[in-house]
């Protein structure tokens, strides 16, 4: 027998293993979805900063066109309204959705004790979803989409791709948890389950509505209602489910009250669909319906207070942990933003406020506080806890992690405040029928503040991405031993 000299390897080198095209290892789905989410965080905040710069310097419009065979022409114009739509869609569909699904893949197996039914399926869904979002953004910048509100309706093929991805995500989730559902199911799984089903239903419905022609202003009304329902069910649900994992796990304490968690969940479930009706402000809509919507929006304060109280009481005896930067401090910031943003949205759900601020950037400021405040810090808190365990590295990278957290917090606070005050001033000027020149010169200072905030936020996002990269490439290897929370005389064993 003759040996192939090229295939012989020294005895002390391990044999080469074939890499899979689509990873299927345990926790690969969580790692990939969360890593992609951090990249989208940088992209989305960058788009936000560019949008605000264009509002201040309107001449900074970028145009690119190209002609291809078969009379195919592509015309890309980066003007403020398209940058705004790109920013909002990148935040919601890019950063927050990827982070939420990554959180679900990390948390669900750990609280249920059942592995994901298919990491391969979850990773294929990652590719499909992000392809859909990229194509959707391309159609925004090419001006193909009709103007139907901040959260865009993509073209049907792109929507179909998105629906397929969300369907796969639901399939993997429900395939993993269905058999284990029961009275002892942890509260996070309940939030994730409803959130995923709502995401699938709402996204599919929004896509299907494209096939029907509605008279003005119904396309805009329905899109606004869709955006509110999606935010309340999907983003808020996933963020709260994440916080319910991070706070007890990072503090080492048991959850304060399972009953309180369930009450918060039930009130959230009922009030979120009612709150979406507040967007339907039009004479053709029965007054009673929009009043119900306003009440629902205001009453969302109830689940917000219950969740915050439950998690703060969970921290009893471990308050010193908040003095250090990390998952817990970011979770606390998320809770603070949750209460504040819910109050802002309760005010913003009133008819008079919608009429006053609707054509202004006030709604974008509210989005910054909810999307880039509450939900972002909830998922960053999970990232601080999960990434070291997924990558098997020591957590954080010294002052870079601290800088990232401070920059993000300061950026959100300043940008959100700048946009909301700008919106209030803008609404006042519109009510006085002021011309575009007067509006632009009055609002420039508010917008400068918002640009500064958004710039800090983009830097913070970049710092997080860099921290993650350095943790992976140069971080100290670490092994995390999972321990149960310390025994407590009042704790009930093995419950939700």
């Amino acid at each position, binding site marked *: 027998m003759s040996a192939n000299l090229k295939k012989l390897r020294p005895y002390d080198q391990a044999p080469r293993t074939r890499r899979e095209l689509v990873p299927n290892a*345990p926790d690969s789905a969580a790692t990939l979805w969360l890593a992609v989410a951090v990249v989208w965080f940088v992209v989305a905040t960058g788009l936000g900063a560019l949008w605000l710069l*264009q509002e201040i310097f*309107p001449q900074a*419009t970028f*145009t690119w066109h190209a002609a291809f065979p078969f009379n195919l022409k592509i*015309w890309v*114009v980066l*003007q403020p*309204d398209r940058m705004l739509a790109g920013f909002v869609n990148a935040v919601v569909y890019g950063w927050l959705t990827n982070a939420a699904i990554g959180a679900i893949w990390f948390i669900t197996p*750990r609280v249920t004790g059942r*592995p994901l039914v298919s990491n391969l399926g979850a990773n294929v869904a990652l590719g499909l979803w992000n392809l859909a979002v990229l194509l959707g953004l391309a159609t925004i910048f090419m*001006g193909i989409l009709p*103007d139907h*509100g*901040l959260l865009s309706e993509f073209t049907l093929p792109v929507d179909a791709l998105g629906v397929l991805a969300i369907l796969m995500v639901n399939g993997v989730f429900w395939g993993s948890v269905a058999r284990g559902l029961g009275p002892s199911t*942890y509260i996070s799984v309940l939030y994730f389950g409803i959130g995923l089903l709502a995401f699938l239903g709402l996204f599919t419905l929004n896509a299907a509505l494209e096939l029907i022609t509605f008279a*003005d*202003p119904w396309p805009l009304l329905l899109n606004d209602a869709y955006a509110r329902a999606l935010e309340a069910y999907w983003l808020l649900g996933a963020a709260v489910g994440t916080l319910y*994992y991070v706070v*007890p796990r990072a503090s080492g304490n*048991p*959850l304060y*009250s*399972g*009953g*309180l968690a369930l*009450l918060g969940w039930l009130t959230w479930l009922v009030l979120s669909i009612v709150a979406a009706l507040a967007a339907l*402000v*039009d*004479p053709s*809509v029965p*007054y*009673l319906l*929009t*009043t119900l919507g*306003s*009440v629902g929006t205001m*009453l969302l304060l*109830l689940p917000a207070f*219950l969740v915050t*109280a439950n998690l703060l009481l969970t921290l009893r005896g471990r308050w010193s942990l908040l003095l250090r930067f990390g998952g817990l401090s970011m979770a606390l910031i998320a809770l603070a933003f949750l209460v504040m943003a819910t109050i802002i949205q309760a005010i913003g759900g009133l*008819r008079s406020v*919608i*009429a*006053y601020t*609707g*054509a202004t950037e006030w709604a974008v400021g509210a989005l910054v506080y909810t999307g880039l405040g509450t939900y972002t810090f909830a998922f960053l808190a999970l990232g601080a806890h999960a990434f070291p365990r997924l990558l098997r590295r020591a957590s954080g990278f010294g002052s870079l992690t601290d800088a990232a957290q401070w920059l993000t917090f300061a950026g959100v606070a300043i940008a959100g405040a700048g946009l909301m005050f700008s919106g209030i001033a803008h609404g006042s000027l*519109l009510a*006085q*029928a002021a011309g*575009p020149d007067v509006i*632009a010169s009055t609002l420039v200072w508010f917008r400068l503040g918002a640009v500064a905030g958004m710039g800090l936020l983009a830097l913070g996002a970049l710092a997080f991405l860099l921290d993650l990269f350095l943790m992976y490439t140069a971080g100290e290897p670490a092994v995390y031993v*999972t321990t*149960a*929370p310390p025994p*407590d005389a009042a*704790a*009930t*064993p093995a*419950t939700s």
Partner: protein
Amino acid sequence: MTIHTPIPSRTRGLPAWAIWLTVFLLLVGGVYFASNLSGTNPAVARGPQGSAAPSGSGAVDATVALAIIKKAQCQACHGQNFEGAIGPTLHGIAEGPVVEALKPVAQEHPDNWIHLWIAGTDPAVADIDRKSMPKFGEGTLTDDEIDTIVAYLKTLK
């Protein structure tokens, strides 16, 4: 192997303060609902970014015009605030054209030269080089829409 790390809770019960808070907030919501049962929602015009504009604010006509301008993508060439970019500025065109080539048309048709130029279908403007500006009268915009745009552009100083 999946490591099962269940999270226990201190208690399954519901604190009394939570029940009272729930009842109180539901009552407040109920009172607000009961005091806003009848009425009519305001007529809210939708602006260029798809959001509501206040009615009766004087901005409604501008909002409608801007929506049509957005559809025609005028700002892609004339700038976000019509200050000029690839195309010339549109400020001050109520006084007359800013482009030399259009001055003869403005002299011949002082009342509707802007409409004729935007539509691009009239023989009066047929020989003037449009430099890639589309002829919006060829199915893109109706006459009423062009009139709305003209009325708005004339307000730009």
